[in-house]
């Protein structure tokens, strides 16, 4: 269970990016976080695994406080938090297998890491997961030779190699074409239930958020202004989150978004 309480993040002396967020994610629910650029979605996700240092507040994963961890303790905690990135962030010049095994770097020692002598169980797990997402035949290919969708699958498998207790996805589909991005969303959704893993997804595409996730959290100016079921996410909620301007992308197709677009045109 992931429990965020009164999370504040301020860069320097500027206005806070996150202004006291509270969020609780339990079980294997898939939660999407929507909001305009600069609303603080990315900052919130990065505070959880401490790629960004929170200014104040509390973040607990299965009861363990994450905010004050340092050094080896922080690294141990990070192993349990998988992350998928918008730009994939693969090790481009290394093979797919090396990328996948890199998900185990928190568990192996430096000698094992450098000499690629990972435990047999890790290699087995790597093949199982790669087969699950259909990239096993690329094991020895260089990561930068793959297509966007394949690269993001490598990113997902790498995160799952960590045997995480929660999966964070920071706009995992924003660099992909529409069809591929649907495939990745389906994959995240089904993996969440197969591995009974809670997943937090930052996403710009509101239609995808409504289709593939079971809960939507809306951020605006660092505050949570919507938290509910996709069915309750209506035009009013959309206007509140994006400030009455057009939603970015092709956001909503099954709500009165078209009228809305004509209004302001």
């Amino acid at each position, binding site marked *: 269970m992931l429990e965020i309480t009164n999370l504040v993040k301020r860069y320097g002396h500027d206005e806070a990016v996150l202004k006291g967020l509270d969020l609780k994610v339990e079980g294997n629910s898939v939660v999407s976080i929507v909001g305009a650029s600069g609303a603080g979605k990315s900052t919130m996700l990065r505070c959880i695994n401490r790629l960004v240092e929170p200014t104040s507040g509390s973040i607990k994963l299965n009861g363990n406080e994450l905010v004050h961890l340092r050094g080896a303790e922080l690294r141990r905690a*990070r192993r349990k938090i998988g992350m998928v990135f918008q730009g994939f962030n693969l090790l481009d010049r*290394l093979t797919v297998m090396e990328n996948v095994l890199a998900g185990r770097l928190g568990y192996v020692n430096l000698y094992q890491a450098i000499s690629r002598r990972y435990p047999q169980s890790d290699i087995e797990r790597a093949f199982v997961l790669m087969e699950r997402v259909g990239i096993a035949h690329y094991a020895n290919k260089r990561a930068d030779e793959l297509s966007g969708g394949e690269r993001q699958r490598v990113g997902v498998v790498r995160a799952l190699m*960590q045997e995480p207790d929660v999966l964070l996805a920071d706009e995992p589909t924003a660099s992909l074409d529409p069809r591929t991005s649907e495939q990745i969303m389906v994959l995240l959704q089904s993996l969440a239930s197969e591995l009974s893993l809670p997943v937090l997804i930052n996403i710009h595409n509101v239609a995808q958020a409504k289709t593939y996730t079971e809960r939507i959290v809306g951020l605006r100016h660092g505050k949570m202004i919507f938290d509910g079921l996709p069915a309750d996410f209506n035009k009013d909620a959309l206007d509140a989150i994006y400030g009455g301007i057009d939603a970015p992308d092709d956001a909503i197709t099954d709500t009165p978004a078209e009228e809305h677009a004509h209004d302001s045109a």
Partner: protein
Amino acid sequence: MTPPDAQASTPRTWKKPPFIANPLLRYGLILVGVVYLVWAFGSLPFNWERIAEGLPRAGRIFGGGFPPSLERYELLITGFKESFQIAIMATLLGVLLSIPFAVMAARNIAPMPIYIIGRAVIIISRSFHPVIVAILFVAAVGFGPLAGILTLILYSIGFVGKLLAEEIEEIDWGQVEAMKAAGAGYGAILFYAVFPQILPRQVGLSMYQLDSNLRASAVVGIVGAGGIGSTLMNAFGRYDYDFAFAILLVIIAVILISEGISGWVRKKIW
């Protein structure tokens, strides 16, 4: 919008804006440059008599140099062998040592105090020309190839270390973040997210450095640090001009070949 015919009467012209916008500053700088050149040539002590005396001597040297003679080729081969040994040893050790210093001198992955130490080492090893360093090392460890190797190691650390540090500062940070997010330690992050990204540059720089060390080994030999430079110095010392010219020609040939090879290798691995 103004209608197009409003501007048709006066043809519009365009000139590239001057590099220095202020005309006063622009012409002032040119004037200062010209005045300085005139003053410098006027005040430097050129001794025309001596130059006139030297010209026939230069003629004699060049005359004596033709045709170049390879009679004493054993000396030439020994000298080149030593130069190659110096260059290869210095490149291997220098390039290896430059990696930790480059890591230390990269602002994005080194903490402040370490960064200052790393930068200091690189700046110091870059501040002196190899010839000056060679003079110091010859004084410290005596004549011979050891002084040459030490000199060129320092030279390689300075050059490769600096460029590598800059390369590290420009890596794709996302890969580092991904490794951090997986809970990887500092060493694992270096070997997975940093080194693979700088590898092509590293190989290219090593090839370039080998090339450059070979050239420099000829120069530092002149002050007594071994290699073909020493052979050349001896040949001149004994008025053996035809042999000296042969050495010069062979140096040019070797540098050309090594440049060709290193350029080819760098293109291949890019």
